[in-house]
């Protein structure tokens, strides 16, 4: 029997989850929650590359999500670009900005890096809030329809809005995870993990540390940007909140909670933190408290994150 590599296994599990769970959905609302999990999962996969692989911290990734989201809102209206191309444009702008900003910022380490990226995120959010003539300010702006659902309908595939976004975002997540997993075992991925372990040691074996860090930063920025675009297109409305500080923190929290070193773990974290507020509506007032408590407990008892720790326990018991 052929041995299945961890990469294939992860992709299989993800695909199975995306494809099978809808059979258990009691109503259309669950497609919406699923799509949100996938969008967050995509952004968090970018965090895995930056933080899990390369060991760099960013507290400003929502800034890139904001750029991706507003690209979809503004480019079609101002330049007549198709919303699908606007996703690419947003990703390109995010990559370019990440490259420019990342060069000086990534020379910083630890919490200095965290604060510098935080500053970047806040800047983006301020621009979106204050450039009222362009972005319509804090009240937000409408995003044009992607139109893909209508095309699919012409081809005979009639999906509801919720179903469409569920499968569409699911597809993006699987592709995103596939790229991240490929990166993991590629030379570039090994270099990233090496510099995570020790920058000095990585340098002595000939790794161009600043360049590799910059690469990881740019790639993860593209992930965040695409997730922002998907969110905007799905909601057909976007406000500067998408670039807000809380959204940045949310991304990091999801990754760390689920397990920042593993793609599946981080997506699992995104799933839990997206589901919790929906489950906790009964005691909405305590939602933040429960989230905080879960976070503290995970950090104390399951330091690698939920999924890797659980898997290790399960494996340990099996042997």
């Amino acid at each position, binding site marked *: 029997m052929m041995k299945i590599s961890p990469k294939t296994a992860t992709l299989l599990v993800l695909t199975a989850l995306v494809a099978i*769970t809808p059979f258990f959905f009691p109503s*259309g609302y669950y497609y*919406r929650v699923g799509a949100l999990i996938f969008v967050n999962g995509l952004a968090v996969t970018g965090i895995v590359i930056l933080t899990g692989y390369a060991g760099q911290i960013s507290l400003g990734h929502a800034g890139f999500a904001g750029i991706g989201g507003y690209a979809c809102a503004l480019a079609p209206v101002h330049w007549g670009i198709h919303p699908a191309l606007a996703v690419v444009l947003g990703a390109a702008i995010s990559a370019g900005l990440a490259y420019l900003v990342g060069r000086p910022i990534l020379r910083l380490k630890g919490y200095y890096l965290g604060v510098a990226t935080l500053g970047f995120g806040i800047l983006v959010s301020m621009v979106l809030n204050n450039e009222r003539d362009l972005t319509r300010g*804090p*009240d*937000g702006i409408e995003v044009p329809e992607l139109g893909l659902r209508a095309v699919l309908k012409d081809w005979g595939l009639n999906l509801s809005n919720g179903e469409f976004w569920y499968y569409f975002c699911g597809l993006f997540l699987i592709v995103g995870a596939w790229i991240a997993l490929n990166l993991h075992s590629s030379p570039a991925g090994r270099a990233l993990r090496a510099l995570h372990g020790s920058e000095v040691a990585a340098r002595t074996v000939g790794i161009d540390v600043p360049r590799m860090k910059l690469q990881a930063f740019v790639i993860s920025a593209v992930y965040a940007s695409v997730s922002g675009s998907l969110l905007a297109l799905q909601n057909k409305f976007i406000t500067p*909140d998408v670039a807000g500080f809380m959204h940045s923190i949310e991304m990091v929290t999801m990754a760390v909670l689920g397990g920042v070193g593993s793609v599946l773990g981080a997506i699992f974290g995104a799933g839990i933190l997206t589901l919790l507020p*929906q489950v906790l509506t*009964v005691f909405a007032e305590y939602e933040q408290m429960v989230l905080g408590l879960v976070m503290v407990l995970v950090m104390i008892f399951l330091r690698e994150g939920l999924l890797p720790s*659980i898997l290790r326990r399960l494996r340990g018991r099996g042997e």
Partner: protein
Amino acid sequence: MKKTLTTTALGLLAALGATAAMADIKIGASVSATGPAAFLGDPEAKTLEMLVEETNAAGGINGEKVVLVLYDDGGDPNKARTFATRLVEDDEVVAIVGGTTTGTSMSILSVTEDAEVPFVSLAGAIDIIQPVKPFTFKTPHTDRMACQKIFEDMQKRGFTKVGLISGTDGFGASMQAQCKDVVSDYGIEIVADETYDPKDSDMTAQLTKIRNAEGIQAVLNPGFGQGPSIVTRNYKQLGIELPFYQSHGVASAGFIELAGVEAAEGVRLPGNALLIPELLADGDVQKPIVTAYKAAYEAKTGQPVGTFGGYAHDGWHLVTDAIKRAGSAEPQAIRDALEATSGLAGTTGIYSMSAEDHLGLDLSAFRMLEIRDGKWALVE
């Protein structure tokens, strides 16, 4: 591994479904009871919770019990959209009241328009109902109407040259634009137009500039939060004698307190009936409604009643009144009845909707008030 994950996911999904309960008439709400807009959303949530009890105590609607499904979106438009989807798809409500902020309202309405469920928004922006969307209605009057009310009063007093000092926050900027748009209808000219950041602690520079504008006869301050109280204090400190107008954004007792009784003396602003139940004439149709709401709300929560809770009050009554008149709890029938609402008195004004007007208020919803000795007085 696959199995573990699937079971976990299913467990969570089951927990999600468990909150749905059986009911006769289900009305949904998503308001921002927490987060940055909590000062608006919290009274709205409390009002809705109070009103559903009241409605059921009075025998429900058409003999059927009403259930309120209330979610807190924390002011996050993304969450608001999720909750709107949940209300429509999972809880299967027949109408939604809510959307505390413009952003959350815009998110909710794109869901409700798709699902063809009537939605009564509690947010200010005119974009929500213009262009008219078949299933979207709203209760608060618009900035534009506040501008018109103020300019109407200025016109009556014979002013033709006025100065504007506006906050740069969402409220201030939007009202500034609307005021500039309608000012010429009243034969008034804006001779000074200054702005301040809502976090500024001193606006004397801008006010000095305004005072020196040639021929200026009155000043208007579109703003929200603490900015207008600082402007009012600076206005007094500079000894400016020109008549001073504030917006409906500060129509609360808190404003007089912050600005100080002395500085606030003589300030005029458009407010609604809820601020002055005891000043209303005995024949006023709004009088019994605002008096009853004020008494009930204050008894229940121990907090002073405010304009925003009043929006939720009106939203609830618009929907329940529509269900009563329609004699049916079908979303389409409720929508048709909502659009046919005529002469329904609420706390904000008297609503008469039509196919072209999904707000249904006119300028009479605003009362021109003047602050005298730290109290509201009606200007006739």
